């Protein structure tokens, strides 16, 4: 795939897995229905078992704790597992192994062995899948030292970040927003591997900084476009790429330029990454700040009905009006 060609998000994920499995024989891939003809419920991984065989790519029983626990055991004994926990919501069933084993092993073993594994899951709302097939589990893991959490925003980002996650020697929780799977956009340069823990400026701007991750980034970019066109507000959009580690320096540098920050999270404010980010920015960047606030969801489960779900999730329109309401009068010229 050459740079410039359009790449679909789900294909970007597939290419990253294939390229890394080709590059490193110790990479294995397993999960529920991932090897079936369709390649998982979101058709992300068809053909991978045919290519690498049943020893390296296989379907498992519906046993999330066994999948995740086995990935841990395999990771500390020479394999580099990529596992799929189909919907992020099901991570509840896998948490013990990740939190109490994978995340702690490197430290507790006094660096005897690292835990190179990747847990891929589909996350996010907007698909009318209801309260337990729409959550974003990142913040369930936010406060666990030893875990990395990646949340790509585009096909190119997905490919580069997943390749990095597979090569990383730490457990990486990898979030794939459902409503990005069918997005087609520019492919990355061949072989590109993105750093974990380094945010990027997705759009430069001088009037305020909008920080997000995953689907929040294209939403913020769309909102920024509307604000530039209709309100002559130039928003800078920061794509965090990873929620753990958080690239505080990149955010502070942007806030130093714009003096205003909005963090957009598809999830409740309490205990969310956005609220945590606000705290850190206030602590370290107070002298640069004129305003700082966040756009999140209600403190409620995600509703099913289209009218309720649409009102619940902060999309581009909600971001744009949040900026207009809060800062439009002050910022607009």
């Amino acid at each position, binding site marked *: 795939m050459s740079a410039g060609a359009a790449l679909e998000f789900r294909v970007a994920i597939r290419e990253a897995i294939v390229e890394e499995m080709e590059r490193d024989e110790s990479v294995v891939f397993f999960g*529920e*229905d991932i090897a*079936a*003809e*369709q390649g998982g*419920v979101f058709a992300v991984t068809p053909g991978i078992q045919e290519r690498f065989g049943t020893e390296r790519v296989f*379907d*498992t*029983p*519906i*046993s*999330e*704790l*066994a999948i995740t626990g086995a990935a841990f055991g395999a990771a500390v004994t020479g394999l580099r597992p990529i596992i799929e926990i189909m919907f992020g*919501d*099901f991570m*509840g*069933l896998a948490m013990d192994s990740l939190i109490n084993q994978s995340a702690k092993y490197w430290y507790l073993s006094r660096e005897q062995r690292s835990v190179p594994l990747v847990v891929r899951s589909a996350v996010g709302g907007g*698909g*009318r*899948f*209801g*309260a*337990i*097939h729409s959550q974003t589990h990142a913040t369930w893991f936010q406060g666990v030292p030893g875990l990395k959490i990646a949340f790509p925003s585009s096909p190119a980002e997905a490919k580069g970040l997943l390749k990095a996650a597979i090569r990383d020697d730490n457990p990486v929780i990898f979030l794939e927003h459902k409503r990005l799977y069918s997005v087609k956009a520019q492919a990355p340069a061949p072989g590109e591997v993105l750093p974990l823990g380094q945010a990027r400026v997705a759009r430069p701007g001088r009037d305020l900084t909008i920080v997000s991750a995953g689907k929040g980034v294209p939403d913020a970019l769309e909102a920024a476009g509307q604000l530039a066109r209709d309100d002559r507000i130039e928003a800078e959009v920061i794509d965090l790429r990873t929620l753990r580690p958080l690239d505080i320096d990149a955010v502070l540098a942007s806030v130093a330029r714009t003096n205003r920050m909005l963090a957009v999270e598809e999830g409740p404010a309490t205990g969310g990454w956005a609220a945590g980010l606000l705290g850190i920015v206030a602590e370290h960047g107070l002298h640069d700040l004129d305003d700082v606030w966040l756009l999140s969801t*209600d*403190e*409620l*489960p995600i*509703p*099913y*009905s*289209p*009218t*309720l779900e*649409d*009102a*619940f999730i902060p999309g581009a329109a909600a971001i744009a009006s949040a900026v207009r309401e809060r800062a439009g009068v002050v910022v607009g010229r």
Partner: protein
Amino acid sequence: MTVDEQIVTEAPAAYLERYGLMLLIRLFETEMQRLFLKGEVHGTTHLSAGQEAVPVGVCSALAPDDYLAGTYRGHGHALAKGTHPDALLAEMLGRVTGVCGGRAGSMNVIDAEHGLVGCFGIVGGSIAAATGAALAAKGQGRVAVAMFGDGATNHGYFHECLNFAQVLALPVVFVCENNFYGEFTPMLKVTAGGDIAGRAAAYGIPASVVDGNDLWAVREAAVEAVARARSGGGPTLLECQTYRHHGHSKADPAKYRPPEEVERWLARDPLGVAKARLAELGVSEQELSEVEETTRARMEQAVQSALAAAYPDPAGETATEFAP
């Protein structure tokens, strides 16, 4: 009177009514398919057509205030337990008149009034919900039933709850709807030993394999298991073998299933099996078609009322995070 005698001496009219309920579930699923394609049902949906005899047979053995915990393939579970078709369909359509006001949707229906603890979207979740309901049911003279698939028997929920329920002698019936597939994966490929009912032996729980497409067989097994539970005899595992007529969810064409296998199961459609048996018992064509007519009219009414209902207005939502 023994369980067998009860079943045998029961008037055919009771079975005719149960046949009507099975047909209602079938018609409901047909409407779900149609309304999904029209964009009225959102996200995804899991149809249970082909499996109707299991929930109807099981619920026929329950009292109205007994508990049932079902799954995301749960339209039949809810209807068999007594959820009103209008309220269930409206929920699927995300309308404000839905049994959960449109908040829950297809995979998460809850209807406490009818003893439906919930239809759980997490595989295995129903097993724990019913186990817990049995803890409460014990002091209430009630029984709890868990419905779950073959795939769920590989989950920690299954093994932990069977052990837990037996240790505490809980009044619970574990009903596995073995339709031989979990999503796109054949049961035998991911189930060590291949014998689901056989797993109960490890926990000292009585179990049997049941023809899940035969209403009479399901009812008989359920009546016995429920009687055991209610009289303090503890849990039972019923492996009801059946088959889904559709794919796993919405647009899954189920190409992974061999055509001969599908044919074989379609030939044993639980509705056809029940109809033939009713005829044998002397139920007339006329009586059958009367029940079919009434059921069709009932379903049609549900569709009309659900489609006429409003969507919830986010501004008017009264949701609170916490119970007061």
